[in-house]
């Protein structure tokens, strides 16, 4: 359950941003979470609800955009979306690099 640690770090960043913007309230947090980031969205939501208590983000909504995994095959140079946890390219190769799907990102913040 490292989602609490991640959310604490997220909260630090968004509260700093809100302060810079002279905001009195945070209404919505938009995040992008990759399919192989190791983050469970439900756990992140729980962490968000817990860590924002008593802050200006207390009643805010967390909006999570899920980012699918995308690989680059080092054998045939194609990009492909793996169909399961075994990242096998159509060419049969297992050698690839993950180019998308590890994201744990803060996208934007809705404030007033």
């Amino acid at each position, binding site marked *: 359950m490292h989602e609490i640690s991640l959310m604490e770090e997220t909260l630090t960043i968004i509260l700093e941003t809100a302060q810079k913007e002279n905001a*009195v309230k945070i*209404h919505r947090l938009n995040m992008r979470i990759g399919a*192989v980031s190791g983050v469970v969205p439900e756990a992140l939501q729980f962490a968000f609800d817990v860590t924002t208590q008593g802050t200006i983000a207390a009643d805010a909504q967390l909006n999570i955009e899920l980012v699918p995994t995308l690989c680059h095959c080092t054998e045939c140079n194609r990009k492909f979306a793996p169909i399961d946890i075994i990242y096998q390219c159509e060419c049969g190769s297992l050698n690839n690099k993950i180019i998308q799907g590890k994201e744990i990102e803060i996208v934007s913040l*809705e404030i*007033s």
Partner: protein
Amino acid sequence: MCGQCGCDTTETLKHEHEHEHHHHHRHNHRLVDIQQSVLHKNHTLAQGNRQEFTQRNLLVLNILSSPGSGKTTFIEKTLKTTEQQFNYGVIVGDLATDNDAQRLRSTKAPVIQITTGDICHLEASMIKNASDELGLDGLDILIIENVGNLVCPAAYDLGEDIRVVLLSTTEGEDKPLKYPTMFKGADVVIINKIDLAEVLEWQEDLARENIQKIAPNALILAVSARKDTGMSAWYDYLAKARQAKTQTGYSLV
């Protein structure tokens, strides 16, 4: 204040909401772009660690596994067998006790314990502080024993050269398929407690096949740290990795 979204009602700009308003008031919501990785700070600190380790020609291992796979025994055996060859330093992460650090203090290597409390993984900042406390002068290899957990530590780069993931025969052959994120990041997978394979009806071929599906480029070594079986292949790898680091500033991986 709006009871639905909490926005201030004293402002003077109307805007669209995703929820229904049953009252009229004025809003001044605005969207601020941030576009930042939550792990950005950790990543920056990890790169700083890596730079310092490389300047010192220090080979750094991040040892990961579920609790009870035999990380401490594996490290202890490695230290005792090869401490004539290399000067080791050890950083141990544990939730609560310093039992593992105490066990490793029977070796020559200086050991620093990080007690993480509720934190289920090690982060680059903890490694920076522990390295400062340990003192890296004169060390050849730094071994980091991460918190026993096959999920959370995978997300945190510590600045290491090599990720070593242990899988013990008591855990079942399908662990790499159940925890793919951890095994995908492995440079070396150590199958430990191979001395128990027969009694557990452990299928080594199946385990290797599962590891290769998830981490096709990882080196796989089957050992029993406790019985000292198969460990020489690991020591050979370690010597090569250390040599590669001193010659090129980069590890084998």
